[in-house]
């Protein structure tokens, strides 16, 4: 016989008064259970991360940068290049700590394009369909220059499949770029163009550009970057892992802006849009080569197109005027990282900030570049 039968019946919509005072045993059980809930809840309270107080490197630079690192919750590496002088400051990190640099990767892809043009492998007007199998899709007609300057009309990101939406629901900070090279090309084949010719940021466009340059060179994108940029500039700690399996088991992970641990991003076939992992030291080498004009594909930095909001675009690179200075820069973000690289080509200065939190560091980089601290 079930409890439902022996338990007292109560008519619907009527209150259930406690007709008898609770027995001591009931009170004791209630107290124990309530205290247990309180204890478990207190022990399991959320503990948000905070910016490391373990500061190494130049203390004056660290002190100057700190007010601009509002959202940083974990580790930050800063490097300031001033002529031949390089100054580092690190919060909970070293200058060789490896971070995801997100869309700063696009500057590498743009250098590969300018380098390929200088080599005579492609032209700025080469079409995507001439290199990748796009079978008459709208994107086939798009030029490499349009892809590099976000004027292709391709969407910011390709639409997610239902399965990908469910995965994002489960883990909102996960890597949304899960297609391999063939998958990215298929996304390009399906994509429609909108407002082609006007500047509209497109990760898909840069991913296709990188894969097109790789295909034209008959090598994988990661090998192309390593051979054309990392190796000549001595960036030995920089990699394009492409897949999670290629990462070391102790690869640094970061935090979302609200303090949630974010999974690593490798971007798979979309790696040309944001898949590089690098260090402050390596990016100093990169910045020095850019300042000295010894990097391959320097033509990528030349501003060519106006976005109508005070910024001129080269191949990926943004050029703006800040406090009377011309600044060439690019930022980047993944699920748990932010990065900024800002160059003052006239005054031979550069600032690199890498953070393991998805909180923008671009303003901090521009401020440090101006030297207003």
């Amino acid at each position, binding site marked *: 016989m*079930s*409890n*439902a*039968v022996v*338990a*007292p*019946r*109560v*008519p*619907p*919509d*009527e*209150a*259930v*008064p*406690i*007709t*008898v005072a*609770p*027995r001591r045993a*009931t*009170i004791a*059980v*209630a*107290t124990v*259970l*309530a*205290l247990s*809930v*309180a204890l478990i*809840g*207190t022990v*399991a*309270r*959320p*503990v*948000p*991360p905070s910016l490391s107080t373990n500061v190494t490197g130049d203390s004056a630079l660290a002190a100057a940068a700190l007010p601009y690192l509002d959202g940083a*919750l974990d580790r930050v590496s800063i490097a300031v290049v001033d002529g031949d002088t390089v100054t580092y400051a690190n919060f909970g990190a070293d200058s060789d700590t490896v971070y995801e640099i997100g869309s700063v990767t696009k500057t590498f892809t743009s250098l590969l394009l300018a380098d390929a043009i200088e080599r005579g492998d492609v032209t700025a007007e080469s079409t995507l369909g001439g290199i990748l199998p796009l079978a008459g899709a709208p994107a086939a007609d798009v030029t490499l220059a349009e892809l590099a300057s976000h004027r292709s009309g391709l969407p910011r990101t390709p639409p997610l499949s239902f399965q990908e939406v469910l995965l994002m*629901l*489960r*883990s909102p900070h996960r890597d949304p770029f899960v297609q391999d090279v063939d998958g990215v090309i298929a996304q390009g084949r399906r994509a429609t163009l909108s407002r082609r010719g006007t500047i509209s940021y497109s990760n898909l466009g840069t991913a296709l550009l990188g894969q097109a340059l790789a295909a034209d060179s008959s090598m994988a994108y990661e090998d192309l970057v390593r051979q054309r940029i990392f190796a000549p500039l001595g960036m030995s700690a920089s990699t394009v892992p492409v897949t999670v399996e290629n990462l070391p088991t102790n690869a640094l992970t970061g935090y979302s*802006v*609200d*303090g949630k641990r974010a999974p690593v991003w490798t971007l798979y076939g979309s790696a040309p849009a944001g898949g590089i992992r690098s260090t402050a030291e390596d990016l100093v080498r990169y910045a020095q080569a850019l300042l000295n004009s010894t990097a391959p594909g320097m033509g990528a930095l030349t501003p060519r197109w106006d976005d109508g909001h005070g910024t001129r675009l080269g191949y990926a690179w943004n050029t703006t005027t800040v406090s009377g200075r011309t600044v060439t820069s690019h930022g980047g973000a993944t699920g748990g990282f932010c990065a900024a690289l800002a160059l003052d080509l006239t005054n031979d200065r550069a600032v690199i900030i890498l953070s393991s939190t998805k909180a923008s560091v671009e303003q901090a980089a521009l401020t440090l570049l101006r030297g207003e601290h």
Partner: protein
Amino acid sequence: MDVVVLTVIITMLLGAPDGIILSLAVAAIAAMIRSQGGLRERALGVLRTPFLWASAAFSLAALVLEDWQSIAIVWLISAFTINAWRRHGTATDRDRSRMLARFAAALTGLTMAWVAGNWVTTPIVAWLLGVALLAAGVFGMVLRWPALPWFAETFSPVRALGPTTTVAMCTLIIAVPFT
């Protein structure tokens, strides 16, 4: 079935405000289906449906304050505590099955707070307050437990469906971020 838990599930899938509006529409349709009699009686019946009022109040708060998750968390935890302690009126659970379902919903609210809350900017006192409310609710629930039947009405599988569905949906909400 707890209408706010249902709203949480639908809004997780569709996003706000679409999920909230759809949930309110579902609650209104369910209230209409449940009502009986002539047109006037049916209209009055709909207006007297507690879950429709709960859905409307939750939806209004979520849409006005533009933060459905925080509203849901506060709602689920405080609804359990209030229902566990109140002895009269509509805001009281009349049987153990509903009280357990509401406890599951409150636990879900606290889990949502842990998973989705921005604890970088929200003082930890807010968490401790939620835990204290849950503990107070548990205390009240255990005190009332011996005096309550498992089901206020005669048991039937259909009547058991409401609390069971609430618990199932709560399990789903909690399981999503941890699997």
